[in-house]
């Protein structure tokens, strides 16, 4: 029973594992692109958390249909929030990639160790 309960939270497990994988990549990888990929995984994990918590058992999309009463909806607010957060994440990623492109132009490499050596 206990085990099943824990497994029932599998969305949160995925969230936690993805979060840690992303963070690990950011810290351990020396390739700037791989760092950014890690950062993206890290952020996506958080999106998953928000999406998970808005789910209401048996709920449908929060669209009001005429004549339907007592319909259970999923909470729309986290979805809206996470749309915003995804936009923010995409902009961050785009800016990060743009910086990597510039790094490559100026240094001729995107390996952190090689960059540090050349300065």
């Amino acid at each position, binding site marked *: 029973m206990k085990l099943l309960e824990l497994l029932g939270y599998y969305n949160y497990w995925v969230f936690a594992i993805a*979060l840690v994988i992303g*963070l690990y990549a*950011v810290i351990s990888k020396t390739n*700037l692109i791989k*760092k950014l990929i890690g*950062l993206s995984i*890290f*952020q996506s994990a*958080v999106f998953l*958390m*928000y999406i998970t*918590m808005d789910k209401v058992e048996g709920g449908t999309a929060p669209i009001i249909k005429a004549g339907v009463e007592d319909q259970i909806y999923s909470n729309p*607010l*986290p979805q809206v*929030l996470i749309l*915003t*957060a995804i936009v*923010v994440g995409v*902009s*961050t990623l785009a*800016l*990060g990639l743009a*910086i*990597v492109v*510039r*790094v490559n132009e*100026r*240094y001729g490499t995107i390996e952190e160790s090689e*960059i*540090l050596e050349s*300065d």
Partner: protein
Amino acid sequence: MDLISHLPALQVIVPMLSAPIIVLLHPRGLAWAGATLAALVSFAISIALAVAVLGGETQTYAMGGWPAPFGIALSVGGLSALVLLVVTGAAAIALLAARPSIDQQIELERQPMFYSAWLLGLAGLAGIVVSADAFNIFVFMEISSLASYVLIAGGPDRRALLAVFKYLIMGTIGATFYLIGVGLIYMMTGTLNLADMESRIGDVAQTRPVLVAAGFITIGLALKAAVFPLHVWLPNAYTQAPHMITVFLAACATKVSIYVLIRFDYMVFQPTMAEHDNQFALFLMPLALLGILVASAVAMFEGNIKRLLGTSSVAQIGYIMLGASFISLAGVEASVMHIFNHALAKGGLFLAVACIAYRFRDLRIQELGGVAKTMPFTCAALVLCGLSLIGIPGTAGFISKWLLITASLESGPFGWIFVAVILVSSLMAVVYIWRIVESLYFGGSANRDTVIAEAPLQLLVVTWIAALANLYFGFFPEVPLALADNAAGVLMGYGK
């Protein structure tokens, strides 16, 4: 509704809407003029808000007429008014002086974009301050961060790119941590409005998600605020940024994150979560003390003048955190005052550095020997702001140091340890400031073949305004003091 009641919204809207217009202003100088005008208007708005707050009531605003907690609320109290003054004041001062320095560092055709990013950064920072909604704070935080990444990356040195990349990674992790915390709280309370959170969180105070949320939010914001030891991004970013951007960011960027941190911990968690004050203080106080000592010690040995001042900022953030971690009226007041006074001192110092940098490319201290002979006014302003950073009486820095030491003495049996740390670090500040002063005034002048003159008048005048502000607020600190007093009263009043 009259104009005053719209001011909290205008505070964000003015710079935000000016930004896209400025992109279009291509003729030489027009972009700068537009951005400066927008910043000055923002500054005027924040002064009006401060006057209104001093007059009595907290200013609140419901976006689109939707009342909180359904709509997005803005609110400006004593603390926000003071931080707004710092943010918009820093932007206005830096932009006023910026033109000669920016002309030198940023190519002409990129300038409209650059100024536009600057205004977006200002809008983001102002938005964080006025927002009373946890998620909105995140959005504004990201707006300001993205803008400041762009601004810093504008630095002419290629090392700026690496510094900014590091800042981007750290900043995003910090913001995402904050987002996780907000999500967990939303999960438990079903609200994003800060005031609403405060009233609802009591019922679920000791549940694990809320405890975890408190941890994520505190650490995420500490990362953005460059609290030791999460500060590694800061010295590099400040060193490599264009000089005027350093002025702006050093004066206000980290302080806004501290502001959010203080608001969350005092307003949302403190009143209802048992033991939170202990956890908060025990977490922050050692970090603050270590930060003060280690960063000051490192600053004593820094070679580059901008790096030195950036490292010193980490120590000064330690002062602010130390005051906040006392969880007492006097402590919070000292902490809030130091937000204001440090912005004055550090902003002035970086302005003077920008003046020097206008004439001298190499900013290593030993290369700046004898600069005072050719730039006497710049160097005098630098000395004045340096004295304020040290905390010599008669300068703004002294006021916050006095308050901080008083708060330490009143904080209990360990008070003397805090006093000792503050004083030792002040003495280290004497050492690092005087290293600069000695080099400027008595160092051997290296073989310079070109005739070096004073900085352009525009830079110089603004630098002196900042320097004299340090003196003025050293003798007449009533206004910031009243706001800090108000802020401390409100923050400590929650849950009472």
